[in-house]
């Protein structure tokens, strides 16, 4: 359930965060608002350049799909109208990731979950305007029983696995920003899972708050 995170580790970018959750370790950098290329220039909002690089080998369509999902989430939560004709560059690099052996399914839910949570800290570190906070959770369901942040073994045994991300307003989970599901699931089961996920995400958010408090204190360590 718990994750470890560090921010402000890269010097050449405006914000960065490294997150370790379960067996997944990811580092994200955010730079912006900066000058866009001509084809990226949008007249009244910021454009987002999102790049995801896998832990092993070069990026392929698998990463493009993750980029799409991340983009749909970030596009709605970043206050893009604040930075017209500017570019915000986000690079997500997986350092350690659970790889399944040959013949087994390639699960992306843990990676997507880690990428979303890491992006949150990187965006906060960079000072990019967000309309609300957000927290994501990776769930696997096995016989109706939910496991949060499942390991590869859990995923292999599961009937279905999901990634759910809520936006957090006034400390409470408000709306679903993203819900990715794979596998067999009944409607009842789905709704129960979502309601349970609400409180879990709020717990994650409390951890986020705690970390951000430390970070802000650290940013002003020199203040008398």
């Amino acid at each position, binding site marked *: 359930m718990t994750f470890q995170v560090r921010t402000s580790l890269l010097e050449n970018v405006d*914000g960065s965060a490294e997150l370790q959750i379960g067996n997944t370790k990811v580092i994200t950098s955010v730079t912006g608002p900066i000058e866009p290329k001509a084809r990226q220039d949008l007249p009244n909002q910021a454009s987002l350049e999102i790049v995801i690089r896998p832990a092993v080998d070069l990026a392929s369509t698998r990463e493009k799909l993750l980029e799409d999902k991340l983009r749909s989430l970030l596009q709605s939560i970043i206050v893009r109208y604040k930075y017209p004709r500017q570019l915000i560059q986000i690079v997500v690099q997986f350092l350690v990731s659970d790889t399944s052996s040959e013949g087994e399914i390639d699960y992306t839910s843990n990676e997507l979950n880690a990428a979303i949570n890491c992006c949150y800290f990187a965006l906060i570190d960079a*000072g990019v305007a967000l*309309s609300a906070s957000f927290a994501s959770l990776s769930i696997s369901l096995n016989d109706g029983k939910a496991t949060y942040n499942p390991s590869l073994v859990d995923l292999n045994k599961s009937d279905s696995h999901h990634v759910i991300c809520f936006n*957090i307003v006034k400390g409470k989970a408000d709306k679903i920003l993203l819900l990715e599901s794979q596998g067999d699931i009944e409607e009842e089961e789905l709704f129960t899972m979502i309601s349970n996920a609400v409180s879990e995400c709020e717990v994650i958010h409390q951890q986020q*708050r705690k970390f*951000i408090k430390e970070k*802000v204190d650290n940013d002003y*360590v020199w203040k*008398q």
Partner: protein
Amino acid sequence: MSGSLIIPGDSLPIDSRDSEIKTTIGPGIYKNPQTQSIIPTNAGVINVQQNKAKTTQLVYVESNSKRYIPQTNDFVIGIVTGVVGEAYKVLLQDFSTAVLLSMMAFPNATKKNRPNLKIGQAVYARVSQAIPEIETELECIDPTTGKEGGFGLLDESGYIFTVNLNFARELLFNPNSIFLEKLASRCKFEIAIGINGKVWIKCGEGIKLEKETSEEEGKTPRENTRDLKSTLAAARYLTKCQKISVESLDQVLDEAFKNV
């Protein structure tokens, strides 16, 4: 309450719908044009300042970042990166969009009498217009007196380095800041601070520019480099100050100046 942590999604500790009080919003707060609600968009310390009569209030979030976004009336240090038409293209930060400094925006500038800035030179300027959708403009002229007022070319005898934006604000706006005071106990210096995070500093005479001296009679090479070393030490000290607490200040100062 003022002084506590606020993160995006939290509610502001003010009543924005109260029509009796006029609210001004600052950095880190955004007013949604559709819903007209005001929300915090950055994580930091919330600051609310009300006047005695409680008729006006100011709300903003104090937070640290590295990317400078131009605001009107900011004092900045920019590097000249080119010429476009009758204006200089100036970079306030690597990778940011370039801003314009008109050749006429200098005291006593006329069509015949243009400033002579070269690529790579640094200027101290004031942001005269910063509308997000269009190009930001700078001026090197004091708006009240029409004279130079400290703006203009920052000569090459000084060193330029970068600091975080919150530290730049501290150095520029806090009259009780001890960092510069402590530095003054070690060396004489001239400093220009840009709110875009760039700092120009010169200890003593800084670097002797080649045009001025070829062979300094009577001055040993050691003296020639002493100002250079001091300037670099001062820059090192200020950069380090951002990461330490006030107690270790003296120690950091000593360490930075140990080779001088």
